[in-house]
């Protein structure tokens, strides 16, 4: 199978999953115990016959189940995710506004996890069974069981309250800093593009701690994987050959071993996208980071269900798409996968 065929096939296979996703959210909205009208419109909205009538018409609530699903689907495709009773705005608009903050945080966390994880994994493999190895493995082990919200609170306690290295949980910028002009909605990027160095610095100071907390788990995971795969290919013939030709240990590690050891890491990064978005729900709550995770939590507490479902469906779609991208990347790097199908 050619690469192109594989890519097309993989994308087509994602379509049923995305349709399934919409069915799940549809069922959650309409068929869980409790009055769906109250859930979707709020107590006050459900008590107002005018609102109920408009809503019933727009979402086809007077029709049968399957018909109602098609109305729902049609609205979804047109980007209509309903209205939030918390913000009194269209959910799609809210998501559009809150999403860049989450992307910024998740990207920063991925960078932290990838750079830190690869470095730590190399260190551990190079000094196997000595203290750097033990240290990295201990940290990776702790990282696998640590609740991310607790880690966030501890980090704030240490780096904000005791050491004053970073600002407190006040969101993305200090109150005295102006928001940079909107290009992507990611403040660090926008500030960089517009050359506002003070704003960039302030945004980075706010970003660094949540990014580390969110990325910690995957940092540990990547470190463990890089370590394991470096050790696995450690005795490979081409490395022995390189050594025989008198290459330095550093060059062998960086040029010959590392690229091959990194292929499995790509899978982890793909899974990380989902994990990071899920972790963002908790991390954003701890750091008062105004992204879609915190939006989901705030609206869930306010029993604002259309907003919750909006976030759910957005994250679900991103997760599916990122899995496809990972599969494609993987197939590009490792031809055996394509042939295997």
């Amino acid at each position, binding site marked *: 199978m050619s690469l192109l065929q594989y890519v097309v096939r993989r994308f087509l296979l994602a379509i049923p999953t995305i349709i399934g996703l919409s069915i799940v959210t549809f069922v959650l909205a309409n068929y869980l115990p409790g009055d769906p009208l109250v859930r979707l419109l709020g107590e006050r909205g459900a008590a107002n016959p005018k609102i109920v009538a408009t809503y019933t018409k727009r979402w086809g609530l007077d029709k049968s189940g399957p018909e109602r699903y098609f109305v729902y689907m049609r609205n979804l495709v047109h980007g209509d995710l309903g209205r939030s009773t918390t913000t009194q705005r269209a959910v799609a608009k809210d998501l559009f506004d809150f999403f860049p903050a989450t992307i910024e945080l998740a990207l920063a966390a991925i960078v932290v996890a990838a750079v830190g994880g690869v470095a730590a994994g190399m260190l551990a493999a190079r000094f196997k069974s000595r203290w750097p190895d033990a240290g990295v493995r201990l940290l990776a082990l702790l990282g696998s069981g640590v*609740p991310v919200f607790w880690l966030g609170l501890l980090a704030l306690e240490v780096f904000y309250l005791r050491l004053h290295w970073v600002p407190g949980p006040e969101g993305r910028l200090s109150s005295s800093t102006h928001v940079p002009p909107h290009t992507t909605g990611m403040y660090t990027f926008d500030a960089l593009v517009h050359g506002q160095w003070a704003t960039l610095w302030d945004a980075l100071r706010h970003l660094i701690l949540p990014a580390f907390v969110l990325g910690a788990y995957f940092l540990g995971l990547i470190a463990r994987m890089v370590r394991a795969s470096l050790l696995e290919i*450690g005795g490979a013939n081409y490395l022995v050959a390189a050594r025989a030709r008198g290459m330095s240990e550093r060059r062998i590690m960086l040029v010959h071993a590392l690229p091959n050891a990194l292929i499995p890491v790509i899978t982890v990064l793909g899974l990380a996208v989902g994990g990071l978005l899920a972790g963002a729900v908790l991390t954003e709550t701890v750091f008062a980071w105004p992204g879609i995770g915190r939006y989901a939590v705030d609206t869930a507490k306010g029993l604002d269900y259309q907003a919750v479902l909006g976030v759910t469906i957005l994250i679900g779609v991103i997760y599916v798409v990122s899995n496809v991208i990972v599969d494609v990347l993987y197939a590009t790097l490792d031809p055996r996968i394509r042939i295997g199908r």
Partner: protein
Amino acid sequence: MTETTSTIATSPGHSTPKKRPRRSVTLTMGTVVISGWVLVTLTVPWWAPFDPVKDQDLHHRLNGPSGAHWFGTDKLGRDVFSRVMYGARISLPLAISSVLLAVLIGCTIGAAAGFFGKWVDEALMRITDVTLSFPAMVLALAIAAALGPGIRNVVIAVVLVTWPEYARLMRGQVLSIKGGDHVKAATAIGCRPGRVFRRHVLPFCSAVIGVKATTDLGVVILLAAGLSFIGVGAVPPDPEWGALVSDGRTSIAHWWIATFPGLAILTVVLAFNFIGDGLRDRYDPYHRRRRPKKWR
């Protein structure tokens, strides 16, 4: 425990490994920690110094750790130590019951799909595909938010997001075992499908499922604590661990409020991971860890 010899022997310059004591050490450590927490769960009412909910003492609110209050007191003057210990009575049964339910539901459906094949299988795989395409935390949040707060609803949410993994695992197991010669032989001598399944297929699945269930106990505790932390899980006076950590969020200066329940979660999750890894090395032939060679 001899499977490593072949891989090691092929690599020149390495002595045969010693017998592996480390693995059983982690398994033992995990078992000890969990046994400790189970003991706490069963006996805490007899020795806890304070009632976790009723003993409020506003004169001694937000006090740091001391002889009287080992883990300090919270904003209502309740003893954090007692609350953390009583928390085990919520978190452990919650995790165990959720995982048991998920195993029961998932394995039944997965076994049916694997055993009967055809459209049952097809339908099931589509359902699991979809459920697994949400990050668990997000889907659990959506379900818990719809059902409203409360421990029972947390269990429902957790079961709904975890059962598909068991279904998929069980299906795979059944599919690979049902083609085996012993199954054909049993069918040939006239065993009914039910008996074939019970006596000749099921016993071979239990190891893999058991290992996953053990590790998942830790995952579920994290998930449930996360739900409580953001306020869609346990209802306030209940000393659920995630909710206790959440209490510390409003006053990070009083570090003891969040730190100790967090440590409780950490120890339990790590212990379940240890046990899961240990069991996998012992019982699951497919996942035996290869012993990594040395760099150079």
